[in-house]
């Protein structure tokens, strides 16, 4: 039996729409579920207070502070190294066995489970370099974890900049470095930023790495070498130890809000930066 094209068209449309709808429903279900369970505990005291009785009562201020510090640290370390590597791979090497090995390595590294990074960070930074459980050790390890993602997304973004834009710059007397700084990177910026946002999101949400490298202290970290507990870790411990499910959901809700906030700010930034280019 042959299905008529118009009927087939409708079937395909319906199937695709259903898949999209399914994704949205799941997403809203999760957000709705967490909101319904956690919204009640979100008060000024919860946001700005110190935890009491291991988080059973009181607020979560130290974990918010720690989350901000540790992810900014990871991004601040990983972005320049990642973008620099991507520029090197795209602009300063010819495609060869070595670049393929580097690229394969970056891809493999991106797929390594985070707990392995956590273990590495624990052995190397915490023990070997005697950093102890600290923001510094956590930020460095997270930076290593998100580095492959930033390298690969930046590489794609840089490669997507049309070659003839570089030629325009060269033909006006631009040196290679000037061409990269003034033409290639500005045009690759939205793509690079996407990688950075992904990395930021992964840092904010990470638990295994942070437990291994930054510990789970409930004090507000005062220096790079203080231990700290991020919101994701706090959520994990509250739920796991059965301290307070309600507060765990409250923390989770803030975590989701934080990630949405980061995305919104990043896209706004991207929009402003590229406005002149359109």
């Amino acid at each position, binding site marked *: 039996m042959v299905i008529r094209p118009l009927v087939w068209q409708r079937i395909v449309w319906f199937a695709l729409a259903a898949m999209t709808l399914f994704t949205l429903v799941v997403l809203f279900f999760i957000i709705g579920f967490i909101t319904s369970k956690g919204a009640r505990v979100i008060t000024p005291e919860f946001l700005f207070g110190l935890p009491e009785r291991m988080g059973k009562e009181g607020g979560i201020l130290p974990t918010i502070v720690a989350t901000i510090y540790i992810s900014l640290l990871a991004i601040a370390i990983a972005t320049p190294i990642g973008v620099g590597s991507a520029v090197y791979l795209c602009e300063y090497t010819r495609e060869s066995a070595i670049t393929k090995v580097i690229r394969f390595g970056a891809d493999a590294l991106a797929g390594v489970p985070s707990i392995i990074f956590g273990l590495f960070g624990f052995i190397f930074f915490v023990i070997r370099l005697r950093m102890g459980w600290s923001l510094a050790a956590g930020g460095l390890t997270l930076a290593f974890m998100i580095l492959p993602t930033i390298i690969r997304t930046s590489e794609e973004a840089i490669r997507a900049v049309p070659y*003839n834009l570089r*030629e325009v*710059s*060269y*033909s*006006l*007397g*631009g040196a290679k470095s*000037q061409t990269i700084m003034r033409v290639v990177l500005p045009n690759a910026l939205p793509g690079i930023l996407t990688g950075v946002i992904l990395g930021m999101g992964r840092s904010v949400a990470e638990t295994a790495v942070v437990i291994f490298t930054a510990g789970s202290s409930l004090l507000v970290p005062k220096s790079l070498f203080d231990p700290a507990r991020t919101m994701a870790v706090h959520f994990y411990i509250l739920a796991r130890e059965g301290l307070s499910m309600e507060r765990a959901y409250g923390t989770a809700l803030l975590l989701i809000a934080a990630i949405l906030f980061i995305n919104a700010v990043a896209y706004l930034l991207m929009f402003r930066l590229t406005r*002149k280019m359109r």
Partner: protein
Amino acid sequence: MATKIAANNLAVAVGERLILRGVDLKIEANTIVSVIGPAHSGKTTLLRVINRLIETQHEFLRSGDVLLDGGEVRRLDIDVLRRRVGLIFATPIPLPGTIFDNIAYGPRLKARLNKSRLADVVEESLRAAALWDEVKDRLQTSALRLSGGQQQRLCIARTIAVDPEVIMMDEPTSGLDPISTAQIENAMRELKSRFTWVLVTNNVKQAARVSDRVAFFLSGELVEEGEAAQIFTKPKDKRTDDYVSGRIG
């Protein structure tokens, strides 16, 4: 008149292919020289060898000389060479950004100019390329919003802004309408006293309209070079005759 650019026994190979073979060509200062010939005759390669843009992309071999004012181009600093010899591409390529930033791109690479000096350069360049009146009120809007013909004149203005001696154009009007084409041809004629023009074109009629001299290339060989009138009316070589009269394309 002084020779601006000279190629002496120039041969270029990219990979296994010989693209230019034994080219001897002299281009006088302040003339418009058209380089004509069918596809794959080496015209674009000639331009890219002159300003050494070929070095950015290909592994290639070159023998013979390419001289700018009598000096080998390979001995010049590459940024100096490219400022002295500008190149306009077949499709207009505005840099993503404003009209102003496009024109200011070249001057800004070299030096930090103050605002009013930069604005003067931008205005002067846009006037030279006959685009000023159309864009003077929207210098801060995106160059990508201009029409194709305007974009190509923008590219010419951008090249003029670095104050070159030679402007090479690689089929600059191939995608443009007749009016835009005429505007660009007029600009070339008007600026002849200031620049030397090398025009690669597929369009024999265009070569006839604007050139002082014409060079006909076929399969990497310079078949014939001479006064435009002579090339189009009394070509010495049969192959030139066949091409300009449209018997071979």
